[in-house]
Structures are given as C-alpha cells and as structure tokens.
C-alpha cells in the first residue's frame, strides 16, 4: 500500500466541543493517520469514542480545533469558494441512518441529481436523466424507482439510494459513516458486497467508520482502533487480528462473539473482561485514557500520555507496554 500516493493526511487532529461554562468535550484529541489511494481505512471503536466526529472533521464538515487535514496536499479547512466546491465533489459521504439522511419531499431522481446539478455535470435534461438511470443501475435499483419518493423504499434500498447520491458526483474519496449498522444482517451483506465491488470498479478510497469490528475487518485494508478520542492502535486488518498489541484492542477482539458454539465455548473461558464503562470525554482522565479499565496499568500510565509508536513495520500502538 505504501507505494500508492497518500490521499488524505491527518496529523495531530483535534476537535473539541464546548460542553457548558467550564467543560470541554474532547471528542478527537490528537489523531494522526494517512489514507492511501484505493485503500480502505477502517475507523473502529465503541460509541462515544469520537470516530464519527473524526471522520466528519476529515472532510471538513466540522471546523478543526487544532492539527491539520490535507487532501492531496491541500489543507481542507482553509479551502474557500471554488476550491471548496471542488473538494466537496471529490470527497463524499454515506450516512448511517438511511431514514434520516434522504429528503422525504424529493423524488429519488432529484436526490441523486442534486449533486449533478450543483456541479454542472450534466449538459442537458436528457443527460441528467441518463446519469440518474446509470447510477440507479450501478447500485442495483432500476429506472422505475427514479420517480418515487423515499418512503416507498426499504432500509436497504434507501441505503442504495444514499450510495447512488454519493457516487453521482464522481468522487475519489468516500467517508462511510456506519453505513450498515441500521440494516438487517441479510441486507448488510448486500450493501458491503456492493461497496467492495464499487471500490474495485471505480478505484475509490474509503474511510469506513463502524463499531462492528468483524465487518470492519472484512472490508478494510488497515484499521485504526479509537478509544475516547485517541487512536489506540493502527495496523493492517490481518495483523490487528493476529497480533493485537493494545490491551483495549485485545479486549475488544475477545468480546466479539463468533457464531460457532465449540469455538465460542473455548473462547468464553479465556475472555478478557473489561470492567466498567467508557469514561466521559468531558474532562477525560490525564495520562492514558484507557488506564481505568486496563489490568496492566502502572504509575507511568497515570502521568504520561502514551505516544503512537511504530513497534513493527506498519504497526502503530499507543501504549507504555511497548
């Protein structure tokens, strides 16, 4: 992957929100990673760990607090006017909730063509219609669906419309924000297969945000595990499963049930149990964020924030153990 050019370069990104008079919610606190062309980077973590905020800040839907996000060498947070518009065409998003992210008062054709109209990608009405049909076909829907409204579709079909809308402006980079978590198991596989096929055919780059580690492992080339606003571990998906280093990653992997009674019986005996909940990101603990739930925690973890270090080629971990 390293030979391919870097598409998105995130360095020391911070995003804080005000949470009352004296409180600061540190949703993303010093996150660094790169995404290469044609790659899928999975961003995984439990709810409230800042993975969606991180993704949204990367495509400049939120202003950053500090740090830098570069898309093909340009700082995305300083873009204005024409340049910003061009970036918006290049970087698209697929949303989590297909029920809330599509306008109920627009027809499917208008939803998909909105981006085409804004960016002037169709010369005339005929071409616009043809494009709409093309993208409907691409995501496994058909022409008859173009003039319907969103309420006539099932969850899986709506998510396909959301994907068609993202693709319609010919993007290079797509941020998928939990695109399958609102869907049923049998429909999830349809959407994931579609996303993988589209990536192969169109050479797309994905930032895939999700909480379901087994699905993220399936779709991603590399995975970043987030915990309370920081990246705990970053490596290839196979390496992450075979040699998880961070105690949090180990616990997370061990908590995921495998649909196989015999294997599950063996695993449950050795399961790493995490006590307690994720602490609040408002005024988070000093030192390592994970120390309160970590059985290896030492004094050093209280005092010093562990840096993200490369312990073996391409395998980064933020833990004082290494």
């Amino acid at each position, binding site marked *: 992957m390293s030979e391919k050019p870097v598409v998105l370069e995130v360095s020391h990104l911070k995003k804080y929100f005000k949470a009352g008079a004296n409180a600061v919610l540190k949703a993303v606190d010093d996150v660094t990673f790169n995404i290469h062309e044609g790659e899928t980077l999975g961003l995984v973590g439990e709810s409230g760990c800042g993975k969606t905020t991180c993704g949204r800040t990367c495509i400049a839907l939120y202003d950053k607090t500090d740090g830098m996000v570069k898309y093909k060498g340009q700082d995305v947070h300083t873009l204005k006017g024409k340049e910003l518009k061009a970036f918006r065409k290049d970087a698209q998003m697929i949303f989590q909730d297909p029920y809330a992210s599509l306008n109920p008062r627009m027809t499917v054709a208008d939803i998909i063509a909105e981006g085409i109209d804004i960016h002037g990608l169709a010369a005339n009405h005929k071409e616009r219609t043809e494009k709409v049909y093309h993208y409907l076909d691409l995501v496994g829907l058909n022409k008859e669906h173009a003039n319907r409204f969103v309420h006539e579709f099932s969850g899986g079909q709506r998510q396909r419309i959301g994907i068609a809308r993202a693709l319609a402006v010919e993007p290079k980079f797509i941020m998928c924000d939990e695109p399958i978590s609102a869907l049923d198991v049998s429909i999830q596989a349809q959407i994931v297969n579609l996303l993988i096929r589209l990536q192969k055919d169109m050479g797309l780059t994905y930032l895939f945000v999700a909480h379901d580690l087994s*699905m993220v492992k399936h779709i991603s080339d590399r995975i970043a595990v987030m915990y309370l606003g920081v990246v705990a571990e970053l490596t290839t998906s196979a390496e992450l499963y075979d040699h998880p280093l961070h105690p949090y990653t180990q616990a997370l992997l061990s*908590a995921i049930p495998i649909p196989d009674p015999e294997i599950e019986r063996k695993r449950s005996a050795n399961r790493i149990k*995490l006590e307690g909940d994720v602490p609040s990101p408002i005024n988070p603990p000093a030192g390592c964020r994970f120390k309160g739930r970590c059985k290896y925690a030492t004094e050093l973890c209280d005092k010093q924030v562990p840096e993200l270090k490369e312990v073996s080629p391409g395998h980064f971990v933020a833990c004082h153990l290494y």
Partner: protein
Amino acid sequence: MENILEVKDLRVSYHTYAGEVQSVRGVSFNVERGEALAIVGESGCGKSVTVRAVMGLIKGPTGEVKPGSSILYNGEEILNYNKKQWSAYRGAEAAIIFQDALTALNPTMTVGKQIAENLIIHKNLNKQEALAEATEMLRVVGIPEPEKRVKQYPHEFSGGMRQRVMIAIAFACDPKLLIADEPTTALDVTIQAQILDVISDLQKQHGTSVILITHDLGVVANIAKHIVVMYSGMIIEKGLCEEIFYQPKHPYTWSLLNAVPRLDLENKQDLVAIEGTPPDLIAPPKGCPFSTRCKYCMNICNERMPEFTSFGGEHKAACWLHHPMAANSIKESGLEFPFELGGVENE
C-alpha cells in the same frame, strides 16, 4: 425433560389501516425447564411479537391473538387468564427484559422504587424491606455503590448500567421464566459481553428458563441449548444449537450463518448476500415465504408451504428440498448445495 412453556400454533395479527398484518403465523415450540432457548431472525419476522404474546402484552383493539392459538405455562392455558391471573403471572412467574432500557424504565421514578415496586406487589414486602432488597439486587447485577445508585434516576445511568437495572427488576421476584428481547442490541460489544455474563450467571444460579431473542447468531452460540429460526412469522428451522450451526438444513439458516463476516476467518471471504427483502405480511405468499429470495427455489415452493422434515432428534426444517420427490428436480437443476439433503422421515 419437562417443559415449562409449550406454545402451539400461535397466530397473532395486527389490524391496521392497510389491512391485517399477520405477524405470527402458526408458531409452535417448547421451552425446557432450566434451559435457554434462542429465537433468531431478522427484524419484522415476528420474534418479538411471539414473546409479547407469552407475556400477555398483545393489546386490542389493533392486536389480536387468533383463536386456536395455545400457550401452556406449566400445563396451564395462559391465554384464558383473567386480569388478576395475568398480574400474578407477570413479574413473579415470567419476566421480560426489553431491548431499549431507556424507554422501558420510568424516567420519573428512582431505580430503587422501580425494582421495589415488583417486590411490594408480589412478595408482600413493606417499603423499607423492598428498598433494602432492591439495593441487594443492584449489587447482584454488578452495579457499584448500590446504596447511592438506588436513589438515582435512569438518566443518571449509562446504557449498560440501565440494562443491568432492567435485569435487576426482572430477577427481583425470582421468576421461573425470563424473556430477554434483544437485551444487548443497543450496547457496545464490551458491554454486551458483561450483560450476557450477568444473565447467564443468574440463569445458572436460579435455574431459570430463558427465551433469548436476537438477530446476532454469535450471541446465542454459547448460551442457548435450543435454537428456533424464524422468518416472516413462521418457524423455518429448529433444533439443538450444534445442529443449527453445523448442519443447517434450511437455505435461509445457511445464508444467515454466512452473511456475517467471521473474525476468525480470512479477510475478504465472500459474504452470502440474500437478495431482495422479506415478504409483506399483509398479503403473505401462499407458498414458502423465503421462495422469492431462495437460490434453490422450485415450482412447488411458490405454491405450497412445506411441512417440517425431521432430521433425527428435534432437528426440523420446513423446506421442500428435503422432500423425496424433490430429488429429481434437484438433479436437473445441477446446483450444488452447501448442506446435505433429505430427512430421516417425513411427518
């Protein structure tokens, strides 16, 4: 083994403006005393409605348990219960844990009061005794500082802690039958593991029978003895946990098992996508409900609902592929099957 619950030919419908939605269409299963049964299926397959009927929570005028249905609890027909009998049964004999603890709990009552409510009604405790018992229950389900927590309101608890409160309420009167309706769906995986441990520990200690509802086959692998797979209001396969996981006989069960990526297998394995969507239950198909999405669909599948074929023991599946007459048609089709065909005997 003795059965604590026997559900026979349960049919539940909801009357809506669009027509009669036949949510549950003839479901029969048994729950053994002290054992865990899992009901697995996608949303809208009728699994929640089935257990709501067991708790007597199907309410008119829209909801209706169809005549001819039967639910026997310890040999007693509970569908004939009057209001008083239902009150004695709910909470004391059978208890339910809902999926979304935040909506299930009362936001205006302290959690202590909500646990004590049950104890005051069913165990004739006075207020102090009940609150002391409630504190003890919070300790049992693993909530730190129960003396302080018992006086707090649900909004002061995290998602996992709320679900623990739900479990405390359910177990307060030591029920014989516990229904857990997707207890961990709204929770993170690390919290899910904690909650499943609490339920499974309490089940072992008290010898409670459990019905666990879920759409995640991984969750049931280590807990359930028996599994029932539902699709569009019907049971399409049932059997022991190992039988369902290792020798699935229905194409739907097999697809469901292969639709989720497994953490322990190679990356980019092919996911089996089940094309299409489940049928509309206002006008359910006259044949097999899975026929429109099934790769192995034959002519008969669109015409008639298959009977259960038995595969020895309690393992049964409702699919025409296992009918002796299907052998020729299967040969002609030249399809390869990921599972063995043919049953032990036809019922």
